[in-house]
Every structure is written in structure tokens, then in C-alpha cells.
């Protein structure tokens, strides 16, 4: 299954390197959100620093919708789904491969977004280990949910508008736990930040397990 995952992830990342959708569309979108919020809140750094954690995760989720739509569209093109069904690849391996490629793209989004907030909102970095852990686990959860929902809506009409409608509500726990974890790491919240990191780990684990279990039937039905 790991070998299959690497084959799929390698192919997806090569496709991304060719199309440059993440670099040319998703990263500019992320930077636009950061700038627009800065303008909307009159550039008041205290307010911006207070909302930075929640804004970070909300932006990651919106960016994830774009990345997942692209990832699912690639597999819908010109008979590729049938060709994938005709392979010896383990469905769980295909799912994990999609997760790895989505995760790689989301980590680029995380780093870009974090740097933009440090520079534009004057956010002082602290609790780097907790921040990094939350970003990593949260991104795994988002990537796993995205890899699961991408093919789920692939056969549906109006799939481009349906995807955010289905995906964003189920990622509410990631938004909540990620934002709380970040607030505590940045010294703005109270309580144990690692509990929130643990919650992100559980959500990631649930979506990974669910994806491995149901990707086979999903691939058959789309």
C-alpha cells in the first residue's frame, strides 16, 4: 500500500509541478485573503494579532477547497478513473497517495500564510513546537478529508459548489482545535495547547482510517 501511495503521490506532485496551480493560483489567493483582512480591520495590529489564529485556519480551509478541487479534477479527466480501476493499485494506497500530495501542497500554503502573517500582522512567533505540530496534524486532517470528499462529489452535478458545502462543515473540528492550539502557542489563550494538538491528531486519524476503508467502493461508484 505504501508503494502504491508513493506512485500516486509522485504522479500528482509531478502534475502539480507542470500545472503550477498551487503556486500561480492558491498562494496568491492566500496572500489576497491576508491583505484583505488587513484592510478590513484598518491594519490595527492588535486586532489582527488577536484574530490571526482563527484567520490562519479559515484561510487554510478555503485554500484546501481549491487544492482538492484541482486534485479531484485531474482524476476525472478523459477516462483516467477507469484506467485507475484497471490497475493493481490498492485503493487505500491511492487514497494515501492523494493525501500525501495534498499535504505537501497544504504545507506550502501553511508556511506562506504563516510568514505573511508574521510580516504583515506583526505576529510574534512563540511556542514553535506546538505551532508546528498543530499545523502538521491539522493539515493531515484537511488533506485526508479532502482526498475523501474529492471523489465523493466527483460524479455529482454542480460538484464545484458542492465540494465546499460538504467539506467545510466536517472540517469545523480542525478549525476549532487548530485555532485554539495556535492561540495558546502564541501566548493568547489559556489551557493546555497539546490537548488541542491531540484532538487534531484524532481527527486526522479518523479521516485517514475512513479514507482507507471506503476509497475502494468510492472509486467503483464514481
Amino acid at each position: 500500500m505504501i508503494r502504491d501511495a508513493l506512485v500516486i503521490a509522485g504522479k500528482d506532485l509531478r502534475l502539480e509541478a507542470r500545472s503550477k496551480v498551487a503556486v500561480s493560483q492558491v498562494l496568491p489567493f492566500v496572500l489576497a485573503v491576508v491583505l484583505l483582512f488587513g484592510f478590513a480591520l484598518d491594519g490595527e495590529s492588535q486586532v489582527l494579532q488577536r484574530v490571526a489564529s482563527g484567520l490562519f485556519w479559515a484561510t487554510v480551509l478555503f485554500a484546501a477547497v481549491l487544492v482538492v478541487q484541482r486534485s479531484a479534477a485531474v482524476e476525472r479527466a478523459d477516462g483516467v478513473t477507469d484506467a485507475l480501476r484497471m490497475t493493481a493499485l490498492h485503493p487505500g494506497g491511492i487514497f494515501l497517495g492523494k493525501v500525501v500530495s495534498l499535504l505537501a501542497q497544504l504545507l506550502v500554503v501553511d508556511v506562506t500564510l504563516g510568514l505573511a502573517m508574521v510580516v504583515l500582522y506583526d505576529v510574534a512567533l512563540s511556542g514553535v513546537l506546538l505551532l508546528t505540530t498543530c499545523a502538521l496534524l491539522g493539515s493531515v486532517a484537511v488533506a485526508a478529508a479532502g482526498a475523501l470528499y474529492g471523489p465523493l462529489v466527483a460524479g455529482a452535478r454542480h460538484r464545484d459548489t458542492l465540494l465546499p458545502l460538504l467539506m467545510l462543515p466536517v472540517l469545523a473540528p480542525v478549525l476549532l482545535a487548530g485555532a485554539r492550539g495556535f492561540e495558546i502557542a502564541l501566548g493568547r489563550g489559556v489551557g493546555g495547547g497539546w490537548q488541542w494538538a491531540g484532538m487534531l491528531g484524532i481527527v486526522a486519524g479518523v479521516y485517514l482510517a475512513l479514507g482507507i476503508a471506503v476509497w475502494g467502493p468510492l472509486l467503483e461508484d464514481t
Partner: protein
Amino acid sequence: MDPVVHLNSTVALAGRFPALAGVDLSVQPGEIVWLRGPNGAGKTTLLRLCAGLVPVAKGEARVLGVDLRTDRRSIRTRVGLLGHASGLYDELSVAENVRFWARCCGADPHEAEAAMERVDLAPRLRDLPVDRLSSGQRRRASLAAMLVRRPRLWLLDEPHAGLDSDARELVDRLMVEASEVGVTTLFASHELDRAAEVALRQVVIAGGVVVEDRSMREEAR
């Protein structure tokens, strides 16, 4: 000798509609079988059923000894399906596509070069992204991606469509060469002259059933 394809009163559904309404067909190793019939007759469904992509609703269906009623997934790596769609990633080059599909099927990616050679894909085309190819070149690339899997049964849906005369001859030559080493081909085609030249047997399908089944060799005589 066990038949490569054995269908007995096979029914397959397209939604609720029976696209195959009780097909009887037995195909021996090395045969080249031409499936004829009007649009909507069930030819594509028959090919997809043999590829394990469409479930058997009723009746018997065995392909390469595998019972499709109980295990249609395991047949998929042993057959090659060339459908209407290319089954290729537009942004990857032809060589990358062929190597990728070889890896996916447990075949040696180094055989990709040989497969592209077999379909006469010019070396300058192999490193081009698929979306820059003409429809005929794309068809050849799809054929290479199928050949690299080394299937024992070829299922070709309109293999001559969109090809120039050289490429059509190439497809026919590949079918004949494959037949000589025991590989079986089922192909659907509306190109009457072309298909009649290469096929060893003609099966006419209408309304989801076989209405005529005759040897082309006898006809030629």
C-alpha cells in the same frame, strides 16, 4: 482448450436498462473477434463487462478463467481496455504516462520505451505533454499504455476511430501479431472494410443480444 471469454445468458445493466439482455458468447485464445451492431446495441457494455468494469446482473461470465460474478477486480490487470477516452493525464508527457501506468500494473517501467516503439510513436513525441498531441497521436499513446501492461485479452472500442491510414494499418498489424502469440482481441468497430480485413470472426449484437456469429474465414472463402 478453455475459452478466454465465456458468456452464458449474461445480463448487464446500464442504470435500470439492460444493456446486455442475455448474451451467449465463447471466444477461444488467439481469436480476433469483431463486434458489430448499431449504436446502443451493447458493444461497449460487453467490452467493459469483460474488463471487469461493469457488474454481471444475471447469467454466467468467465474471462481468462475468472468468474466475473464473484471476482471482477482480479481480471482488470490481465486485460487491456482501449476505450473512447484516452485514459492519459494531459499534463504529463507520453513517456511519463506510459511509465506511470506500467508501474500501476506491476509491469516494468523500462518496457515503456518498447511499447512506444511498437506503436511507432516518434521519439520527438514521447516527451511532449499529451495535451499537445493530435487525436491520432493520443490514440497511439493510449495503445502504448495498454500494451505495456502485457494483457492476455485486448478489448478495443473503435480502435480505428480518428486514425490516419498508417495508424489503422498499425492497429490491424498489432492485433494480428498478438493473435499469433495467443493473445485474444475483441474489438467494436463501425469501419466495415477495415474490420472485415483483420477479424477472424464477426459477432453482431442488437438490443443487447447476439443475433449473428460467423467466421470471417468462411465468408472470405
